[in-house]
Each structure stands twice: as structure tokens, then as C-alpha cells.
């Protein structure tokens, strides 16, 4: 009996988030007729596929008790590198591989510095953020548009679903990333070591687990996900821009935390992160549907709604306990 309650408690934040998500959707559907179509939900995914991929990488880092502030800048760097190389006529596949390698390497480097010099992830990835953002400006201070055939195809070809609905290829990619991440976290040694480190790094070390390797890998994964997120953003906007994804690290962290992953590490699920992204997306969509709010008001309302949401989430979990 104690275990039943224990495992129920573990899923509680996710269940609470899901319930509130359904509530928010119901509210939207009651207010606006168009909201009730399933395509609205899919559109949220389409508009946020890149954020989802970035947030999945962030989930790995936060589960170990770390943080990665560089993701937004790496996303921007990836869009710019893609745009610039494509403009120079490099084959899109080579571009893809190169972008992923750059992102992964940046993450790997930061991870190594964090682990071997025993530095705070906050400060190291902050430096990484400045570095990546700075590199953007050395590539171009202006937006570079993408006209490459492969990229435009990826951007414009919808993937049809039953019932006349559709998603973008980016959503398909994001869902694949999600499935891989969930598998790695729950069925591989790497994944379980991530949780162990979040539980207690000292214990993980004394248990003989590969702490160094895992910690560095986690930042490499986050770098890789950011690079991929950058590619998806390039699909979405068909441009490379140093001003893309400013502040996206905070959206990603927010999504992870709303999804029930604890900032000190050790508990949480990547599925929760998906819900977190959906929450951010649905709030945004509600505001768009309202249509009367001017742009800075959107931010304020997002802030207020987010606030209401997390308080409700806490109340729901507490009541259920």
C-alpha cells in the first residue's frame, strides 16, 4: 500500500499538469468555437517543435541537477551556420551533420569544464551562451534567408494525419527525439546514471558509477538537441538570424519545471516536459485567439497565466496527497 501511494506521488505533478492542460483546452473550446478542433493542438506542436527538442535536452541536464543556459544561443548559432553554409552552396546533408557536430561539441566542452574544474553549470553555460551568441554576430549581423530546396521542402510539406489533420515534418522529428529520450532515460544505464547523479552525485561516485562520463554526456546531449532545435527553427522560419531564440533557454527551463522535473535533479520525466511545452503553447494560443492584446500585453498575460498555472498545479498535487 505504501508503494502504491509512493509511485502515485511520483506521477502526481504530471497528472496534475495534464489535468490542467485539459482544463485549459476545455476553457478555450468553450470560449472560441475554432479552438475545439484537434488541429489547434497540433498547431501548438507545429509552432513549438523546436522548443520541445531543446527542452528534452534540457531535461537531461536538469535531471542531473545541472542547468544549461546556452541553449538559446546555440539554437541561433545553428540557424545562422545553416543559412550561411546553404547560401554558399554546401549540400544540406553536410550542413545538417556539421551543425549537429558543432552543437554537440560545444556541449561536450562545457560539460568537461563543469566536471573537471568543478565549476557551477550556471556560470559555465552562461559563458557558453555569450560565446555562441557572439559567434553568431561574427557570421552575420543580419538575417540570412534560406532558399535551399531541401530546407523549403521540409518546411512546407505537411504530414497528413487521419481526420484531415496534419503536422509538420519538424513535429515528426521532435516526436522521434522524444521517444529516443524516453527510452534512454528509462531503459539504459546512461539514463539511470543520470537519475542517480541527480539523487546524489557523491553517492553515485561511491557506488562506482561513471559520474564524469555521464555528466559530460548530458551537456553534449543538450548541445546536440539545441543544434537540432536550431535546424527545426530554420525549417520553421527559413532564415538564420543572430536574434533568433533570445531567451529560449528560459522557456525550455520553464517547460521542464512545469512538467514536474525538480531543479535540484533526480526526479522527473521527459513526458512531463512535453506537457510543459504544451502548457506554454496553449497559453500563447489562448492569447492569440483573444486577439485584442497588443504584443507587450501578451508577455504580461503569459506571465500571469503561468503563475496561475503553477499555483494551481501545486494545489492539485497537494490536495491529491
Amino acid at each position, binding site marked *: 500500500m505504501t*508503494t502504491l501511494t509512493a509511485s502515485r506521488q511520483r506521477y502526481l505533478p504530471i497528472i496534475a499538469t495534464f489535468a490542467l492542460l485539459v482544463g485549459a483546452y476545455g476553457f478555450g473550446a468553450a470560449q472560441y468555437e475554432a479552438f475545439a478542433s484537434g488541429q489547434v493542438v497540433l498547431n501548438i506542436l507545429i509552432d513549438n517543435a523546436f522548443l520541445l527538442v531543446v527542452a528534452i535536452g534540457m531535461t537531461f541536464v536538469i535531471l542531473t541537477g545541472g542547468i544549461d543556459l546556452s541553449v538559446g544561443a546555440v539554437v541561433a548559432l545553428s540557424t545562422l551556420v545553416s543559412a550561411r553554409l546553404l547560401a554558399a552552396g554546401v549540400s544540406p546533408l553536410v550542413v545538417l551533420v556539421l551543425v549537429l557536430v558543432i552543437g554537440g561539441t560545444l556541449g561536450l566542452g562545457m560539460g568537461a569544464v563543469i566536471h573537471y574544474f568543478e565549476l557551477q553549470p550556471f556560470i559555465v553555460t552562461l559563458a557558453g551562451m555569450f560565446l555562441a551568441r557572439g559567434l553568431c554576430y561574427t557570421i552575420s549581423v543580419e538575417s540570412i534567408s534560406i532558399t535551399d530546396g531541401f530546407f523549403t521542402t521540409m518546411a512546407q510539406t505537411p504530414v497528413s494525419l487521419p481526420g484531415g489533420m496534419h503536422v509538420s515534418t519538424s513535429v515528426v522529428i521532435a516526436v522521434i527525439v522524444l521517444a529516443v529520450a524516453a527510452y534512454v532515460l528509462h531503459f539504459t544505464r546512461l539514463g539511470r546514471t543520470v537519475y542517480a547523479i541527480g539523487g546524489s552525485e*557523491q553517492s553515485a561516485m*561511491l557506488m562506482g558509477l561513471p559520474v564524469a562520463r555521464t555528466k559530460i554526456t548530458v551537456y553534449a546531449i543538450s548541445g546536440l538537441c539545441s543544434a537540432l532545435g536550431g535546424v527545426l527553427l530554420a525549417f520553421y522560419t527559413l532564415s538564420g538570424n543572430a536574434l533568433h531564440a533570445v531567451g529560449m533557454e528560459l522557456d525550455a527551463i520553464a517547460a521542464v519545471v512545469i512538467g514536474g522535473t525538480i531543479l535540484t535533479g533526480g526526479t522527473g520525466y521527459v513526458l512531463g516536459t512535453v506537457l510543459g511545452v504544451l502548457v506554454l503553447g496553449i497559453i500563447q494560443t489562448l492569447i492569440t485567439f483573444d486577439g485584442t492584446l497588443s504584443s507587450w500585453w501578451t508577455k504580461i498575460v503569459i506571465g500571469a497565466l503561468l503563475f496561475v498555472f503553477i499555483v494551481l498545479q501545486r494545489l492539485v498535487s497537494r490536495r491529491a496527497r
Partner: protein
Amino acid sequence: MVLRMTGIRKRFPGVVALDDVDFRLLPGEVHALMGENGAGKSTLIKVLTGVYGVDAGEIELAGEPVSFTGPAAAQRAGVSTVYQEVNLCPNLSIAENILLGREPRRFGRIRWAPMRRRAEELLARLDLELDVSAPLSAQSIAVQQLVAIARALDVDARVLVLDEPTSSLDSHEVDRLLAVMRTLRDEGMAILFVTHFIDQVFAISDRMTVLRNGKLVGEYETAEITPVELVTRMIGKELATLDELEQVRPERTVREELLRAEEVGRAGGIEPFSLGIQRGEVVGLAGLLGSGRTELARLLFGADHADQGTIRVDDKPVSLRTPRAAIARGIAFCSENRKTEGLVEDLTVRENIALAVQASRGWTKPLSRKRQEEIAESSIKALDIRPANPEAKVGELSGGNQQKVLLARWLITEPRLLILDEPTRGIDIGAKTEIQKLVTRLAAEGMAVVFISAELEEVLRLSDRVLVLRDRQVVAQLDNDALTPEQIMATIADGGAE
């Protein structure tokens, strides 16, 4: 010889923890490493397994010189270790804590069902039946300790190192562990065993090595040394015995009830019980692993809140919903879990000791630095905390000395009711005697004490009255006139059904 360590030297800033220590371990023996708190036992183990590097000296495993880069490397070479503090991940399941890093896999995919079965088998060796998918954090320290041992047993090791594995186990689990150790020894494994329980040492070990203040005192055959000689070598002088304690326990003249619990209970924690505690009385809680001793104590302190019954303090009903409320009524609780519920490792001894007094004064009235220093100095002296440096970080103290700091913190708040949950866990026998005397003296001065210990002898030595618990239920309340451990065990066995 499986293991030979020669001329080992290890210094920390300000202390030489090991000074030219030699140690050898033969296959098929249980070798006890003995010494007072802070003698250097755990440091020797950490040096062996590569947690710390050495400043001088050599380590040979099966004749080959080795220098491990860390516990992972030591494990691969066949040295399996249970470190002193429970070093597991509370957020993971019991099964994972046992098998993490060695999970059964197919094509890299962890197979959860066989993993749980394997974990259950390993626990069964220790006579333990648990739901292995439950998170470790929900378990008592004793269970956590057993889980750590089960983890070490799974490794195909040549050398098994156990640093105070029995410190929170009661006699049943200890017997079980010793039996497992005997089997392994007979299979040829070399076992290094650290404990402060002299009887366990004589029950199981073949040879022993004694350390004192980081120096080697000597290596002895267990058959050729007596317990008294051993203790003398450990502390460097003769130990005053506990016999005088019996007379110290004075007749209480005033009978004034401090606290009364009527039908207090909590679902899933402990069945409703009634209990009155008088001033100057020591009430012992006896029971086996999981019998609800800690749960009872936590209710009295408001760390968990009761879902039924009433508690009265000074004959006035009170609501002990939080520890703060309990502290305000003069109730103090010294937790069994010093690592996660007690000490702040990065603060100094002085700061840790001052914490509780400060909290009871409220944060708006800070204790002066000078006052803190006085308090720390006097506690260090009273409990013989080593090193006697109030500015040492608590995380750098040996396990037993950390326990003394925790104890000191609550003692100086001068509570009216002091709840001690395993206060002598990991404390050496000299200091243990001192602590027991202290408890008796405090009671004589009018403090009420609730005393919890897995060691029945200790409970009986100190208590005026003993509450016997079984299956989360108080089954008997016995006045302690010449009770024996056997009587208590019998009461536990028949569930108090006289």
C-alpha cells in the same frame, strides 16, 4: 595475501589522518579494523578504494601494485565496499540502488523484471522481504544500510569492505549479516570489517588491526586477545566500566507529568498509543526493524502530524503539527539520520551546534559570535569531539564525531523532553559510555528523555520504563526493574500477550 598496504600516510589540512600505517588481509578471513572515533579507519578504506589519493605508501592487490582512480576502478579489480555513511540514491528504487551499474541487460536495454527478481534474491540472503520497486527514501536507515550491503554482496569480489555496516541494525539483522559473512569467508573471500561493537568483533573476526590517532597500534589474532585488552589498545588507557551507572540512576522523588499522549496515531505510521512521560524519566523504546520506533518519536516532535488522538503538555492540550511547535514547548528531537535530516556538512562545528539554540530564539535575535564559541567549546569538551576545533567543517569529521556534534546541538537547547533516536550510532565505546552517563545525569536534573536504540542492552541500562513495539504498535509498557534483553525479546515475540 590478497591485500597489503604498507607505509600509508594521508594528511588533510591540519590533521594527519594516517601516519605510516601497514595493513594486510588474507583470503578467507574476516579482519576487524578497530579504533576510536577519528582513528582513521574510514580514511584507510577510502585510500584503499581510491576515493582519496595517498601521500606516501603502497597498496598491493594479489601481489600487484595498484592505485585506484576511484570506487569504480576498485570495484572492477574486485574490491567491493560499503562505505560508512549510507551512500545510495534516495530518489531511486531499492532494486536500482542494489543493481545500478550492473543491471541485467539485453542489447543495452535494462530488463526491469529480472532486475527486480535479482534484487529480491539478494535481499532474501539478508532475510529481508521488501517491495523492491519502492523508492529508497521511504525506508529507515537500517533498511538503507541493508540495501547498501546487498549491493556490495552482488559484486563478484575478492575483497569485501564493510565500514560499520551494523551501526543501525538490531540483533536479528546482525546475526543474519554475520552468517552471510561466514559463508563468504568460507568461500575464500577476504572481508574487512569495521564496527564499534566489541561482541560482534569477537563473534566473527579471525584477526584484527588496531589504529589509534592515525597510527598503527598492532595486529592481533582474535583468539589471543581479550575484549579488555582490545579496548585498552584502542583507547590507550583502561576504560572505566559502566557498572557505576546503575547506582547513578536515582530514585525520582517528584512525579510530575510532562507530556501525555492519548490514543495518538497516524495511519500508515503507527497504531494509536497512549503514553505519559514524567519529568526526569527515561523512557526507552524497544522493537525490531520497522516496528515503528522512529515513527512514534516523530509524532511526539511534530515531524509527522498525528491524524488522531490528543497530546497534552503540562496538562494543556497542544497541537504539535510542526517541529517548531514542539520546540516551542521544549521538545527536542535528535534524528537517526544525521546526513539528510541533521547536520549541514558545509557549516562548521560551531555553526552546526548553534543552529538549534538559534532557531529556538528566533532569527531576529542572533547569538553573538562569542556566545556561539563558548557553546561550541563546552560541547566539544563535554562530548570529546575530535578534532577539538570549533571551526572545522562538519563534513570533514569522522562519522562518530559528526554524531557527537548532532547530539551536542540538541543538548544545549536544554529541552524539557529530549527524544534521542539512535544517538550512539557509530560512536566508539568510550564516548558511548560518556553519552550514557550524560543522559542519566540530565534525567536526574529533571529532563525527560525518550531513548531509542537498536541495542537492547543500552536501552535497558538507561531506561526507567520500556515501551515495546511490534508491527507499528505499542504492545507493552514495562517498568524496568531488572528487565533483561531476553524478556524484551520474548515480549516482542509474543506480541505482548503476556
